[in-house]
């Protein structure tokens, strides 16, 4: 079965729709949404509505730090993030807020673990951006496969024979065998706000039967998404990021 892994949508409706279409056409049967559905982007309400609908149909959904920030004032966010969160809070319906608030931080299913940041202490939102932090997260998860977001760059970490962990930068569109006898941690990349210099939306597709993961980049109307951010009066930097993928 193919599971679509979608993280860090950040209120970008155009990017989410493009990824969902791509996943469906690629044979996705299940969907996992890995947190940070809101913040930065101009369409948080629409995005949450879509994800809530998928959740009703059995999608796996975990909470991200931006989703949490909607419900409580967060001390560590920077000025523009705070501004964007305040705007988002106003844009969301009580039902949407209740949906976000009710999300779990971490979900285990079969050999898989889904979490927005590190499984070691999900509520602390630690970044998994080195082989060592990947190892911590995977060991805490205790699963063969750990799927997460938070870091916006597509990454694959894996356990070597001596217990050491290694990093691999996936090549979009190339299926990578990830055999179940060793542990893997995959970061799906950001649907709505890629930061690696390419504006295409990022997500990943895991084929449980073939034990293969394919990281995808999907072109979408990022200029329209950027225009909506500007029109909403959100910080210019957020629009610029979506335009350029930086």
């Amino acid at each position: 079965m193919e599971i679509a892994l979608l993280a860090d949508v950040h209120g970008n409706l155009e990017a989410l729709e493009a990824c969902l279409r791509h996943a469906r056409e690629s044979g996705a049967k299940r969907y996992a949404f890995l947190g940070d559905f809101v913040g930065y982007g101009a369409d948080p309400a629409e995005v949450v509505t879509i994800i809530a609908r998928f959740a009703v149909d059995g999608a796996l959904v975990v909470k991200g730090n931006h989703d949490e920030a909607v419900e409580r004032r967060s001390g560590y966010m920077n000025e523009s993030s705070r501004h964007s969160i305040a705007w988002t809070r106003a844009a969301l319906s009580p039902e949407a807020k209740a949906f976000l608030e009710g999300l779990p931080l971490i979900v285990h299913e079969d050999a898989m673990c889904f979490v927005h940041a590190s499984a070691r202490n999900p509520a602390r939102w630690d970044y998994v951006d080195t082989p060592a932090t990947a190892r911590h997260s995977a060991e805490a998860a205790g699963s063969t496969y750990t799927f997460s977001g938070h870091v916006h760059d597509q990454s694959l970490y894996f356990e070597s024979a001596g217990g050491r962990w290694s990093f691999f930068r996936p090549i979009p569109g190339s299926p990578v065998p990830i055999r179940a006898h060793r542990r893997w941690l995959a970061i799906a990349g950001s649907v709505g706000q890629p930061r690696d210099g390419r504006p295409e939306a990022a997500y990943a597709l895991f084929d449980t039967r073939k034990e293969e993961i394919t990281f995808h980049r999907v072109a979408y109307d990022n200029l329209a998404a950027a225009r909506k951010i500007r029109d909403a009066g959100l910080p210019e930097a957020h629009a610029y990021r979506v335009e350029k993928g930086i």
Partner: protein
Amino acid sequence: MPEPPVPGAIIDGFRIGDCIHTGAQAWIYRIVEGVAEFSAVMKVPRFGPGEPAENLISFETEASILPALSGAHVPRVAATGDLAQLPYLVLEWVEGVTLESLLRRGGLPPEEVARLGAAIADAVHAIHQQDAIHFDLKPDNVVVKPDATVALIDFGLAHHMRFPDLLAEEKRFAAGSAPYVSPEQVLGRRSDKRSDIFSLGVILYEMATGKLAFGSPRTLAGLRDRLWLDPIPPREHARGVLPWLQEIVLRCLEPRADDRYQSAAHVAFDLRNPEQVGLTARASKSGRTAFLSQTRRWWRARREQLPLAIETATQARAAPVILVAVDTMHPEDPRQAPLRRVVLQILSVSADFRLICTSVIRAGRVTAGEDAAAGASDLHLEHRIRLRHWAEPLQLPRHRLSLHVIESLRAESALLDFAERNSVDLIVLGAPSPTQHALAWWRSVASGVTANARCSVFVVRIPEL
């Protein structure tokens, strides 16, 4: 699962026949039922208690990469077993003979080297085009098919550029086969297709001469020689090797990947079009590179090793150490001055070099009796003064030079022990000659030191006067 499967057993629908190969890493069985498209074998890795973990990683590597490759130059894959449950690989049995069996009786005629060599280069190019690097090219892994094309087998050390490199952390064994491995692999680098071009060069060299370009080193120091040392030109071994073939072989074997052919397709082209081969100095080389340029390469290679050395060594050395063995028993020997000139030229490469001058004197010559201790000390001092005289013309500052007189009956082991204890990087000593003074110890020492040293050795051959 250390137990091998039993012939006749049915595994996931494949009935296995006889075991046709029992290797250190895997068993190979004929498949008698279950694969219709081609004659097939089942490869079952040996792993479990008592078997090295590498077997499984190597198997996993092959099981990941082979299915991603296609074309006539690799075996087709029918199925892979679940690595966590029952690991196996069902793949095409490539009909043909291995290059290893063709080379058992020595080298091949030049036209055969060119024809077959081009076929091997085609196969290498085919996998390179699919983003894979073999990293273990050697005659055992080259199958010459009845139609005279070539298939490559055993992808246990391979790397696919679009897959994570499972072997990246396994530096201990991931290097490859000692005689054929490229300088980059010796340094633990697994990302350059041109490493395969180097191994192809070693294969072509062997096909042309029946000899291994760099021997079969068994130590890391021996392996590292290829970072800077160029091989004896093939024409020195086999007169039938024409300049164009030597040009191709030596170009594949350049220590720096940038100096090699940049594509296996170019190697194939040149082998098929000898008249098109642009000849350089390589084509007419009749001996190894002049010692000064070899020394420069050695120095460059040594710097390349530094990052690795720092990773692995408990204490990184600040500067390389050269040891010169001087025969102070025979200061009148006419070859003392040429040896010194060689040392001077080596030292001129970098001010970071440090020189240790050593002389081994026979402790047994010391007179016995009550004055023995005093006598020994006098003799020791005398040779120390002779060493100082020898080194004086080099005009080295004190911090770059040290003098050591070693008393021993066995010069070879004394030198080697001393070199190892002092982390010497290069030993320089004179080659023996037939007319040499019969008592000169270096007569017997040079070959022993060369064979057994754990570092590089520079044997200076001085023309007869």
